[in-house]
């Protein structure tokens, strides 16, 4: 038993009963549970001041601004960015990618330029680029993966032709748990002068993301997949690039001066944050980062790797079960199918035992097409899961198989 892991009671949601059973949360890849310090931080903002930021001279306004900008500094340290000017608060990963895509579409990319993604991507890292393809004449390329679910680096390299301007890929597949060799891929992309975007939505709660060490140009993540609130995320951008990018959204806060003839945009990071931001979300995110800092990533990975290995071992004994995705390095996520049991039916029946799993395509339909399956059953682990959860899943699974036998 690892002593650095937080006690389960830190997560109030785990104290609830589902159909008479203690909740077993195996859907952290969808969203993680929230620890008490995060809930408290959000509550305190609304209870104590809830003033707007960057506007008011009154004390509550000053305090709100200090808390919001303090959260930006916490986020900067978390991602090891050089400056808080590189930390843009967004509504989440999807929002961050859309923001970047919109900004890039405003003169930064030309018809004939190409964007390279991988077959492992979440819809959030596919559809925004399709919009650029369809409306701006940008070519969209997809690097293939192997039958096991690993990126084909040779094919990836071959697709890196000089007209590729952006390479966007996830650090950790949300559907099958593949860990991508992102540092190597960033270096390959930089050799041809392409910008790189890391979708770290799934990775941030499991592995450290150091943007300077990775040398990526952009990185996006979501608060709610790392113990923070929903509706908040981070877009990291290299300052020299963010300076060049035009705003994606306009309005209050992102301006220095406005006349009906002309507007001067604000400096970074405000240039990309129009309107009243998600202040409570940013404060909650900072609380989540501080919470995460109490557990070394090494311990989280050790814990989750042990759970993945145990799940693979125990599930492999179930007749008719086959794993979807068996990559070289797999983290936090196990996806599988069982003969004659549709994932959705399994999901409903797991719920009878208080077990929350995800059944579906995991917002990665092209990846499902690659494996020629409509959906999978996905278990995703976090630091509050334990060996007993897997034992209960296996017991429940056997009962479910009997229903459809």
């Amino acid at each position, binding site marked *: 038993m690892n002593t650095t892991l937080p006690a389960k009671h830190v997560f109030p949601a785990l104290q609830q009963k589902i*159909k*008479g059973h203690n909740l077993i949360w195996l859907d952290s890849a969808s969203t993680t549970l929230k620890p008490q310090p995060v809930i408290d931080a959000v509550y305190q903002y609304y209870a104590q001041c809830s003033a707007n930021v960057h506007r008011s001279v009154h004390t509550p306004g000053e305090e709100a601004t200090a808390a919001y900008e303090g959260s930006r500094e916490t986020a900067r340290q978390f991602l090891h960015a050089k400056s808080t000017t590189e930390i843009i608060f967004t509504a989440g990963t999807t929002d961050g990618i859309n923001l970047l895509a919109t900004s890039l579409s405003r003169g930064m990319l030309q018809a004939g330029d190409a964007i390279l993604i991988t077959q492992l991507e979440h819809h959030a890292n596919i559809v925004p680029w399709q919009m650029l393809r369809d409306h701006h004449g940008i070519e969209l390329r997809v690097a293939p993966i192997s039958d096991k679910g690993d990126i084909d680096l040779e094919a990836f390299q071959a697709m890196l032709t000089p007209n590729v301007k952006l390479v966007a890929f996830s650090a950790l597949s949300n559907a099958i748990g593949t860990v991508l060799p992102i540092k190597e891929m960033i270096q390959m992309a930089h050799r041809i002068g392409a910008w790189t975007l890391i979708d770290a939505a799934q990775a941030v709660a499991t592995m450290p993301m150091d943007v300077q060490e990775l040398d990526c140009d952009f990185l996006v993540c979501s608060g709610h997949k790392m113990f923070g609130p929903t509706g908040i995320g981070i877009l990291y951008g290299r300052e020299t690039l963010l300076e060049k990018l035009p705003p994606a959204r306009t309005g209050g806060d992102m301006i220095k001066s406005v006349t009906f003839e002309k507007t001067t945009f604000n400096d970074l990071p405000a240039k990309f944050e129009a309107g009243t931001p998600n202040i409570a979300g940013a404060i909650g995110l900072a609380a989540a980062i501080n919470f995460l800092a109490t557990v070394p990533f090494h311990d989280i990975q050790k814990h989750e790797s042990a759970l993945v290995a145990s799940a693979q071992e125990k599930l492999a004994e179930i007749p008719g079960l086959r794993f979807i995705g068996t990559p070289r390095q797999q983290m936090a996520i196990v996806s599988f199918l069982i003969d*004659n049991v*549709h*994932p*959705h*039916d399994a999901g*409903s*029946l797991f*719920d*009878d035992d208080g077990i929350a799993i995800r*059944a*579906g*395509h995991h917002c990665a*339909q092209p990846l*499902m097409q690659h494996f020629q*399956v*409509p*959906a999978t059953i996905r278990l995703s682990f976090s630091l509050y899961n334990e060996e007993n959860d897997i034992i209960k899943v296996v017991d429940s699974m056997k009962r479910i198989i009997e*229903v*459809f036998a």
Partner: protein
Amino acid sequence: MTQAADLYQDIILHHSRAPRHFGQLEQHSHHIKADNPLCGDSYELFLQIDDQGIIRNATFQGAGCAISKASTSLMLDAIIGKSIQEAEELFIHFQRLVKEPGSPESQDESMGKLAAFSGVWKFPSRVKCAILSWHAMHDVLHHN
């Protein structure tokens, strides 16, 4: 407490394991796709509707969860031999049966085997599964 296991009544399990009217219908007047991208359920329906507006024959093929497959199988059982108007009326009744608590249809013996779906409303995420093929059929008949 409502158990999801109650959803899987024998008749539903039976029709999901061994669906009736399964396969392609060579002679058809309507070819319909019923897809639920959320869970990947995907069926093709074949209807043979004659000049008088009577559904003479119908089949389906494809893959999906037990609820959607059994629902499609039982739907075809119920509509074969019926007029378009009768099938449309049944669609309205079935929709109420799976969506509304304590619907009149849940007490209506004329719903026959379809009554097996009367508990689906307790599981809002599964209503779409039960109604998938019905909606696809309705979309076509409605415009017929």
